[in-house]
């Protein structure tokens, strides 16, 4: 290859832009770059940087993205509902108490089979609780949260890079299956600054692309189709059962195709930690320390919390002697780990509550207490 063509190739290659920022800021940048049409949100710690960053970047002057500070989380989620109903790529973000307020809207959005992204940067509850990190909304996120039989896709980032990457992934999956998607982060990933490679810019969808991709949308221009109605109401129970069966069929397709997880040192593992989000990184350090002492511990980190990666958990569970589930809650994901492993091995839980983050030493102590045989006798 001559010099000139090598230079040209270097010039043509997209330059990797590495920046240092908070997870919340990465969400905002990634949303603009994905070509999102609208963000509607209400301030709440520890995620207000999402709205602040969007306002500071004023994308309405560049990509045309709408950013609006709403009067409440109720309004925010219903703005998301309204935008999604017209086929637009829309999102909101909040933290635990705000997500509780959004559960009504999420139920409607799921019932209307609308795509959208909701980011929950979890803080400790219940009630007003604390502003510090927590994973106590696992049940709320993965089991529905609002009324009725519904699910939505839940992705759990453990790095600032994943905060950025999961924005696009969430929107892609949301539109693919016509379902809400949630990024279930916590105060650590939201507030922590890390290096991140931001995704490339892509244009917002044109009205023609929306009409093509979302023939169901109430775009307001039915000139080439019958008018569309977005509604969750169906008073005929026989029809409503059909609707529910359609939702469930979608959920089964998602469960079949979209389970995601990351394994760390599970090939030779005799014991397994299952942890998600930022806690999985603390567990990774704990495992490194334990391995330094000869204990063969592996980590399985669910990336999709719904659908839960039951296939991966079942596979690893079948060849280990015990499992420890580490969460910033009193024991929520452990139920899904027990179901996936069918309780063929002992499944234990270690959790810190109220915004406390465990250190690797605490997790090692727990491993040693629960699985003393994993640790070769001290020299």
């Amino acid at each position, binding site marked *: 290859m001559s010099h000139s063509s090598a230079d040209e190739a270097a010039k043509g290659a997209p330059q990797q832009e590495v920046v240092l920022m908070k997870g919340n800021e990465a969400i905002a940048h990634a949303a603009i770059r994905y070509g999102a049409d609208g963000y509607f949100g209400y301030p709440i710690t520890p995620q207000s940087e999402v709205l602040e960053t969007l306002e500071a970047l004023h994308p309405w002057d560049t990509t045309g993205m*709408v950013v609006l500070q709403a009067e409440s989380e109720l309004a925010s989620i219903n*703005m998301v*509902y*309204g935008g999604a109903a*017209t086929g637009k790529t829309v999102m909101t973000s909040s933290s635990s108490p705000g997500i509780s307020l959004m559960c009504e809207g999420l139920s409607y959005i799921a019932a209307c089979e609308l795509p959208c992204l909701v980011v929950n940067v979890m803080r400790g509850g219940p009630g007003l609780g604390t502003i510090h990190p927590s994973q106590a909304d696992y049940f709320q996120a993965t089991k529905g949260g609002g009324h009725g039989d519904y699910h939505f896709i839940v992705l759990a980032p453990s790095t600032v890079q994943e905060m950025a990457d999961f924005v696009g992934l969430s929107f892609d999956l949301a539109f693919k299956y016509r379902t809400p998607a949630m990024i279930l982060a916590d105060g650590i990933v939201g507030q922590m600054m890390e290096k991140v490679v931001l995704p490339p810019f892509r244009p917002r969808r044109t009205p023609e692309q929306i009409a093509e991709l979302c023939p169901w949308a109430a775009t*307001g221009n039915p000139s080439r189709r019958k*008018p569309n109605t977005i509604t*969750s109401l169906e008073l005929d129970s026989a029809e409503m059962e059909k609707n529910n069966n359609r939702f469930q069929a979608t959920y089964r397709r998602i469960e079949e195709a979209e389970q995601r997880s990351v394994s760390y040192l599970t090939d030779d593992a005799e014991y397994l930690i299952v942890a998600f989000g930022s806690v999985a990184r603390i567990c990774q350090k704990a495992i490194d320390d334990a391995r330094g002492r000869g204990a063969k511990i592996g980590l399985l980190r669910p990336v999709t919390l719904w659908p839960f990666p039951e296939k991966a958990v079942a596979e690893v569970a079948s060849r280990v002697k015990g499992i420890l589930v580490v969460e910033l809650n009193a024991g929520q994901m452990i139920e899904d780990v027990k179901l996936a492993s069918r309780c063929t091995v002992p499944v234990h839980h270690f959790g810190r509550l109220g915004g406390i983050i465990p250190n690797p030493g605490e997790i090692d102590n727990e491993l040693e207490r629960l699985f003393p045989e994993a640790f070769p006798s001290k020299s």
Partner: protein
Amino acid sequence: MDIKTIKTPENLVYQRPRLLNDCTMHYCPGCSHGVAHRIIAEIIDEMGQADNTIAIAPVGCAVFAYKYIDVDWIEAAHGRAPAVATAAKRLNPERLVFTYQGDGDLAAIGTAETIHAANRGENIAIIFINNGIYGMTGGQMAPTTLEGMKTSTTPYGRRVDLNGYPLNITPLLAQLPGTCYVTRQSVETPAAVAKAKRAIRRAFDNSINHRGCSVVEIVSTCSSGWKMSPDKANKWMEQNMFEAYRPGDLKIADGDK
């Protein structure tokens, strides 16, 4: 001359509007919703907006509005129509976007969404049907229920000491800088219908042309909830509702209209 020679297309002076679907409405006889629906369907067609409208339905008697007027609809959760409309309009700024809400939806459960959408000056039209009662759920007290008025949850009449005052929300909305046109109408006589139609057309024009938030209250009857014949309900409305909710323009700030 027999009826067949009279009923010819050239003699037709009154017909179902093109955008009003040919189906049985669930509204009770004498209900104001039917007339309001009809004039909205007429206006959208007359303004040439059938392919440029996003309508937001409420929860309440008008929950099925989307079945009757042949445009794109979004059915909102109870009270949230102005928030839904906010996003629909901001993301689709060229569209005519309007909400159609009752008094419970707009002035009780959706008060925050209504006031904030109006105060932000969202370029939407809000059609507010005020009949002083919850019709869909069977005649309970509404925020606009008059003092002394009997409902299923005020069986001895609304008492201020127990239930608080009727909420006269439309003048409140007129005070907000984000509203450009706030008016109170009714549809119980042909003259009132003609006036209400002009008001709604003006509100729709304001949405299309981004003049701010318009509110058209239509003081309405609920003959079933009020337990009156349609004719008596109309008279009762004029004698009682109009005293608390006086028809007329409350704010005209929509420019050179």
